């Protein structure tokens, strides 16, 4: 499988107290655990991203428990507003325990 690279898009600068949109995407197969290997007939074990969290300066602003029905390369988009600049951190948790993280600075301008 291709290297897992989370991607995030935030506006270059935002205005304090005004809503802005955050888009996130992570490339992941999201193996549901329901499929069978065509050759061996055995079930392919489940391997999905089961949790996503975005936090601003340590405070969670958006979290999601993800279930097997979510398609591959899960895309999340949400709106938020801030009072001042800071760091928006993102975290994806995989079934195998891996955690993929990235962060974006939020600038007021």
């Amino acid at each position, binding site marked *: 499988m291709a290297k897992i690279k989370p991607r995030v*898009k935030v506006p270059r600068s935002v205005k304090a107290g005004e809503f802005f949109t955050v888009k996130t995407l992570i490339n992941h197969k999201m193996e549901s655990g329901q499929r069978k290997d065509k050759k061996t007939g055995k079930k392919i074990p489940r391997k999905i991203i089961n949790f996503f969290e975005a936090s601003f300066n340590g405070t969670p602003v958006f979290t999601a428990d993800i279930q097997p029905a979510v398609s591959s390369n899960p895309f999340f988009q949400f709106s938020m507003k801030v009072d001042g600049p800071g760091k928006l951190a993102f975290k994806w948790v995989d079934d195998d325990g891996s955690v993929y993280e990235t962060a974006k600075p939020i600038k007021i301008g």
Partner: protein
Amino acid sequence: MKKTTRTAMIGAFLAASLAFSAQAGGMNTELVIDTDNGPVKIITHVKNPPKGSPLSELYSGWVFRSKETQALETDDFDNPGMIFVEQARDAWNTPDGTVGKSCADCHGDPSSMKGLRTVLPRWDAKLGKLMTLEDYVNESRVKYMGAKPWKYGGGQLTAMVALISMQSRGMPVNVKTDGPVRKFWELGKKLYYTRVGQLDMACSNCHEDNYGKYIRADHLSQGQINGFPAYRLKNAKLNSVHGRFKGCMKNIRATPYKVGSDEFKALELYVASRGNGLSVEAPSVRN
């Protein structure tokens, strides 16, 4: 009362048979893509196509898609095709083959490929044959990297073609149709207008005579290939031009030519020339 109904029906009938250009008046042809390098304007509508074009106006396939599908292409972040482009970018920087070189070792950044897509397929005098972008990638892999060629129409090759095509985004397609490629172009033209298969249809029956109309639930486009490789929501991957040709031929219950065959390369050249003037749009999003 009866008379009014009839008049209304005639009115509706007339409206339905109006030329496509009138309908297009209400269609959105404004496409600006938000990319990492700022906005890129895409030409999706050419009012005066180059001389000799069989079409009175050119439209990118984007124009015929639903509002939601169109929106996916307006921001690179939303474009699912970019996942594959990113994979191709990794492959671009990864050495492969016996020579131990990567694409980047000779070519540097993929942006050095700017403009290449607009002129392909073209005649290569050195190699003495008609070359598509796929051919060039594999030529380099075999000759300079000592690597195995990628499967024509396969995922890796199509993603690499998308990465290279993307560098020319916004630039108008401008393939040559004269000189040594003329005979391939003529062959492509012949294939385009030849009825085949159990349904006895030619490319032109849908994409020239009836574009803009619905064939059951499908909104027929002009069959332009400026947006290829295209991400299709239907199969959630990038689709090559030849893959699309194959799908079309199956739809009319004909036996398709092989992906990567001379026939499809000739057809690719001919169809590309019909879109001269439209912007390269790859990787586009279609349904």
